[in-house]
């Protein structure tokens, strides 16, 4: 068997918080082909971001390791660019300068000044942000900020693009637009992508495989779902596609039937969300919260 492009083998991590050991991940194994789009999905707190941070090199695995093109990952680096949830643009740099910071760092020696300028503009065009080059991040919308964050990562020409809930903070319409943009960019450039998401539709729409994680502590990969839907994919057509609906159903089943969070927690969270809805009258709420305490 040939060596895979990205190889996550036997990864586990233990955090030390105030002398208490907490095992977040255990025995995570995942292999990616070049150009593959993989989503990580799971309940919050299950260690999805930790997996991503280990691949990025921002965290060091306690055991096991990550190899990219046969080389072990030890440090963070621009070959594994990360798009963070909250865009993470430097608020004091213009849109152009934010991308330039990355481009100047990565291509300082290989591209001339004019080439770099062209490359920055090209990447901003890819995400349709060339019109706002001279704006500060504070002057553009959240969706636009995230587009620039993606452009900054694409501009580094990473071997693997790591997306940490990239659209989580956006409204549904903007999110759909960005998903479509990301899909067409990935089709055009053939990037290898790992994306963390909470959104089942997003995972099925974008991915080649969906990696479903069990709950922590000692979270690991519960199941991997192949998404064999033909590309290019269209969200409107897929919405009623039997294959899409079935896949979606399988992910939901995994998340809410097989690996639901502990019942008491689930009930508690229902009670919490009820408490937030002022429309719900008091007695019902108290019934829910009392059942929560019983379950606990």
């Amino acid at each position, binding site marked *: 068997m040939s060596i895979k492009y990205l190889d996550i083998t036997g990864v586990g991590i233990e955090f030390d918080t105030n002398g208490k050991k907490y095992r977040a991940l255990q025995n995570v194994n995942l292999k990616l082909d070049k150009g593959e789009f993989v989503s990580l999905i799971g309940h919050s707190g299950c260690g999805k971001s930790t997996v991503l941070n280990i691949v*990025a*090199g*921002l965290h060091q695995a306690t055991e096991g390791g990550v190899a990219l093109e046969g080389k072990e990952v030890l*440090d*963070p*680096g*621009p070959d*594994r*660019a*990360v798009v*963070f949830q*909250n865009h*993470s643009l*430097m*608020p*004091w*740099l213009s849109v152009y300068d934010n991308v330039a*910071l*990355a481009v100047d*760092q*990565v291509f300082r020696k290989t591209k001339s000044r004019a080439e770099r300028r062209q490359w920055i503009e090209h990447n901003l065009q890819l995400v349709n942000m060339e019109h706002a080059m001279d704006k*500060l991040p*504070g002057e553009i919308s959240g969706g636009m900020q995230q587009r620039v964050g993606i452009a900054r990562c694409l501009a*580094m020409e990473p071997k693997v693009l790591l997306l940490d809930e990239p659209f989580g903070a956006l409204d549904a319409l903007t999110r759909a637009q960005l998903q479509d943009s990301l899909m067409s960019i990935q089709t055009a450039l053939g990037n290898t992508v790992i994306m963390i998401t909470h959104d089942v539709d997003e995972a099925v729409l974008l991915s080649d495989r969906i990696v479903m994680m069990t709950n922590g502590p000692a979270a690991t990969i519960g199941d991997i779902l192949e998404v064999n839907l033909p590309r290019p994919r269209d969200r409107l057509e897929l919405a009623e596609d039997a294959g899409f609906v079935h896949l979606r159903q399988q992910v939901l089943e995994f998340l809410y039937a097989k690996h639901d969070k502990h019942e008491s927690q689930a009930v508690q969270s229902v009670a919490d969300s009820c408490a937030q809805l002022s429309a719900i009258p008091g007695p019902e709420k108290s019934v829910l919260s009392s059942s929560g305490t019983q379950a606990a």
Partner: protein
Amino acid sequence: MTDTAVTLPSQQRFAQMAAFLRPSQWVPLLLVPCLGIIVFILFWQFSASRIETSLGQFPGPVQVWEQLQNLGAEHFRERDKEVAFYQRQEKRNAEKLSADPQAAVKLRNYTGKPTFIDQIFTSLVTVAAGFVLANMIAIPLGVLCGLSTGVYKAFNPIIQIFKPVSPLAWLPLVTMVVSATYSVEDPLFQKAFLNSAITVALCCLWPTLINTTVGVASIDKDLVNVSRVMALSPLVHVRKIVLPAAIPMIFTGLRLSLATGWMVLIAAEMLAQNPGLGKFVWDEFQNGSSNSLGRIMVAVLVIGVIGFMLDKMMLTLQKRVSWDKQAVLR
């Protein structure tokens, strides 16, 4: 009006300025502060006339205004004397040389007493020197402390112990050390100037150091991670990410330290008889003429106004350097 909604920033600014020329715009803005000042002056006049000291009545606004003019006039008289002195000296030397080209010519400096206005400039230069000296140490050290927990832990006890020490306690030590170590033939700085400047620096150090440390340590974790992913070199990291992110806190420190530096300088000058506004106040107090209290009151007001202007200056600088133009700075 809708078709003119899109205006250039310069046009907008001009429109704002034009609007400000209308009395309806600035009268309400100035009315309340003016009212405050008028009430204060009345209160001052009222209470001053009721305070008798051994040096006469406590100076009211009128006497202080007179002394302010006197001090100005004295300055120009002194300047005239100085010019006359040098003219006389030059003339005398020229005569000497024309009589005998080999004659030894003496050039003496004018040794007149520094005037109030001279003392203001001495104090300003001293505080600037101390402030710059302190921040040349405090900002880099603060950045280091903010970046590295190890460095912070190493320096923190020292910072915590020396921070609450009044710099005036250092003054005797500074004086002795300067006079022991700074003994060059033709000194660039006077010892008194160095004493005051170093004392000011010792108190300017801490607010900037602590605020810079906090500012650097509290940079958004995601931004630091972005920098790590881009594999920025430490120098680029500091220049492009750490310093801009910490600018607001650094300026908070700078403003605090300039304000305390200015206060401490006056005290140090009084205590050590180093030239400056503090010495002026002390000399007037020792002088004990009927005008002394009025002249001291002038100094008090001038010290206040200068302190206020120094802070305004820093605020203007902060607004210029800060990237967050929406931030409310006061």
